[in-house]
């Protein structure tokens, strides 16, 4: 019996030491799109003081899955902007790409630049979103949008930033883009170094009917048709909720909240 108790005590001690050695913490791995928009060799919006939505019109030149050029882009008033290149990092959303129908077509790109915006680690991240539409005024049909940001409300809960959705050129009498809202999550989290990081939820709303479409957790996607009455030939949107979170406590240099999502339409089916 004494040998048995000794072995039990030894086992307990070994397991206890091993257990005490592990207090595993984990933070959320956040990989921004790092949207880069250049005019010539200069960043778009260089030197601006306030959040601005830039409108760029021209013929799309799809250089790669993640780079779209608009040579000789012009603003809505016809003023020349220059040769524009829009690019992003797809590592957070493998497969995300500029749709092929943008190549060689008349496109309208709206880019939102917030010069004071910082990324999840406090790094400058001034371009917080863009959308690309096909067509010429006034008949635009949106094809792709990307959005990300560290915007939070007074309670520290994440909110969608000054999105390129709902401003600068979307005809609300004939909408064809879903709307996005964030809801703070409470059930799923990471035990990070300076407090829990909760994964948030993305509401995707059909702004035609004003009815909630669905709620997406991180990594989830859905298909949603919008504007079918006006343009029944347009394929449905695919919405991808890449990642959203907010922190309950944070270390120096960390953002309070983060949201990142994308939506795109495939090419129209051939007649």
């Amino acid at each position, binding site marked *: 019996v004494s040998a048995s108790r000794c072995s039990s005590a030894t086992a*307990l001690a070994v397991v206890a030491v091993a257990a005490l050695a*592990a207090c*595993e913490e984990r933070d959320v791995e956040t990989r921004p799109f790092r949207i880069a928009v250049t005019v010539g060799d200069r960043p778009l919006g260089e030197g601006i003081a306030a959040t601005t939505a830039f409108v760029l019109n021209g013929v799309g030149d799809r250089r790669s899955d993640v780079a779209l050029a608009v040579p000789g882009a012009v603003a809505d008033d016809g003023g020349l902007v220059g040769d524009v290149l829009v690019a992003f990092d797809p590592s957070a959303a493998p497969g995300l790409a500029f749709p092929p129908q943008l190549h060689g077509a008349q496109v309208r790109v709206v880019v939102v630049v917030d010069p004071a915006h910082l990324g999840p680690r406090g790094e400058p991240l001034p371009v917080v979103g863009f959308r690309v539409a096909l067509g010429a005024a006034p008949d635009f049909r949106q094809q792709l949008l990307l959005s990300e940001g560290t915007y939070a409300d007074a309670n520290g*809960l994440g909110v969608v930033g000054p999105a390129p959705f709902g401003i600068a050129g979307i005809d609300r009498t004939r909408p064809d883009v879903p709307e996005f809202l964030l809801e703070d999550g409470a059930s799923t989290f990471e035990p990070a170094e300076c407090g*829990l990081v909760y994964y948030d939820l993305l509401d995707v709303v059909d702004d035609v009917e004003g009815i909630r479409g669905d709620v997406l957790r991180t990594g989830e996607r859905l298909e949603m048709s919008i504007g079918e009455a006006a343009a029944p030939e347009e394929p449905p949107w695919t919405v991808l909720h890449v990642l959203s979170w907010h922190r309950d406590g944070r270390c120096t240099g960390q953002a309070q909240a983060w949201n990142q999502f994308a939506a795109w339409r495939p090419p129209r089916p051939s007649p």
Partner: protein
Amino acid sequence: VSRLVLALALAALPAAALAQGAPRGEPEAGPPAAPAAENAGEEGESGQSPAGDEGGDDDDAPLDDDEFEQDERPLPAIATGPIARGRLVVSGDVGWLRSGLRGAVGFGRGVDLLLRVESMLLYDGIDAQNSVELGLRYSPLGAGRVRVTGEVSAGQLFAQNEGFTGALTTVRGELALGVLVGPTTVYARGALRGVREEALVGNPWVRDGELGLGVEGRLRRLVGGVEWYRWTRPDLETLDQWRLRVGFAL
């Protein structure tokens, strides 16, 4: 509100322990067919080792002189059941990520009632997530060297955000298998928990689970143990967790 609920729950445990003092010596009023194992509980701990081991502790004296029946009585344990009818095992555990207090009362026939309160004490005191759960545990095999225990419970999870506190409903199922080796119980367990996130459309339940290995040792009425477990979460990284436990059988 969550702190109030936690305080009430914490206060309820010692109160329940005191309340269990009276029936300790009462005979079970169960049907004659009920196995002796359901009657004896912690009093039968000496049945797993020579009587001399317990060194004259009157609390551990058997209820009767039938040595055969003593061998059939369940040892007190925390992770596995059963607990003898009318008896109580209170325990506290400190661990990563969760710590907590629990009380388990034996109903007889292998059925126990559980109350569990947890917080992330080592991580962030009671400022992170706290929970309270009430459950039932059934242990069809409680008298021999093998313990099998199934548990279902439900409760509330209090998730605190900056400027917001939310209470989420939880449901939980657990299955544990233990083997007694002398005064030690080695066990494995698996648990599945659902947390109801009201905002989700369609299926509002968010799932996580635990797969654990542990060992408990016993010294008279005192039970101590350590457990390592993996906290599994769909689509998220699995995290290693642990807990140290101390319990007392009343």
